[in-house]
């Protein structure tokens, strides 16, 4: 019975509230990113956000799920030229301009972010199972395979959480 859930969960909901009744403020100087997309344009955006946050002294927690996890398969990034379907007509322009303007790749950005800051990258175990992948099949920049609960726990008090 759906109607029973709010009552059953009442205790847990209350524990998230401070005495004044407002939500607990985010306290950790951390950016959490759910990286769902595997197209190069969105990977680039996510990597730039992560690098910027790391440079600004924030911890970064990235959770790779679905296409985001597939994009981290070994060597895949070297040939991944996919862009979001809505902007498929920009694909060649984007590749051309990135080359002309010597834009660093999303993988280089993430490597740089790891060098300067505390950046943790975890791949979603559900996706790994779906596609028969093991941690060894992914780029070494990925730290571990975890479930969603571990990510939620790390994102809970993050100052920012993005879904890309």
């Amino acid at each position, binding site marked *: 019975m759906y109607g029973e859930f709010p009552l059953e969960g009442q205790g847990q909901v209350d524990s998230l509230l401070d005495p004044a009744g407002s939500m607990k403020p985010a306290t950790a100087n951390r950016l959490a990113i759910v990286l769902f997309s595997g197209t190069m344009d969105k990977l680039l955006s996510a990597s730039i956000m992560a690098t*910027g946050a790391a*440079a*600004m002294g924030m911890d970064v927690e990235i959770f790779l799920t679905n296409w985001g996890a597939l994009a981290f398969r070994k060597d895949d990034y070297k040939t991944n030229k996919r862009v979001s379907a809505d902007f498929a007509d920009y694909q060649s322009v984007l590749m051309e301009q990135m080359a002309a*303007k*010597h834009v660093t790749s999303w993988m280089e*950005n993430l490597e*740089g*972010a790891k060098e*300067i800051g505390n950046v943790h990258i975890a791949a979603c175990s559900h996706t790994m199972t779906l596609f028969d992948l093991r941690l060894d099949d992914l780029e070494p920049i990925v730290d571990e395979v975890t479930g969603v609960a571990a990510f939620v726990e790390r994102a809970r008090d993050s100052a920012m959480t993005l879904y890309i």
Partner: protein
Amino acid sequence: MTTTYWVDKFVDAKGQTCPMPVLMLAKAFKELAPGQILAISATDPGSKADVSAWAEKTGNTLLELVEEAGVFTFYLKKA
């Protein structure tokens, strides 16, 4: 520019797009000792706001920003 700085390290980020200027800056700053001065040149239009925000957030001092022919040169002192 009227002030002369003894620069301990120079970082050339000209032609680098966001986020490279702040990445290069943060990386280079890790190797500096407190009180040392770093100069970084960048052409990315976002670097003007980015480097200022970075200095403020990290507690380092932006001594001066010189803008010349589309090149921003920042002089920063490590706290």
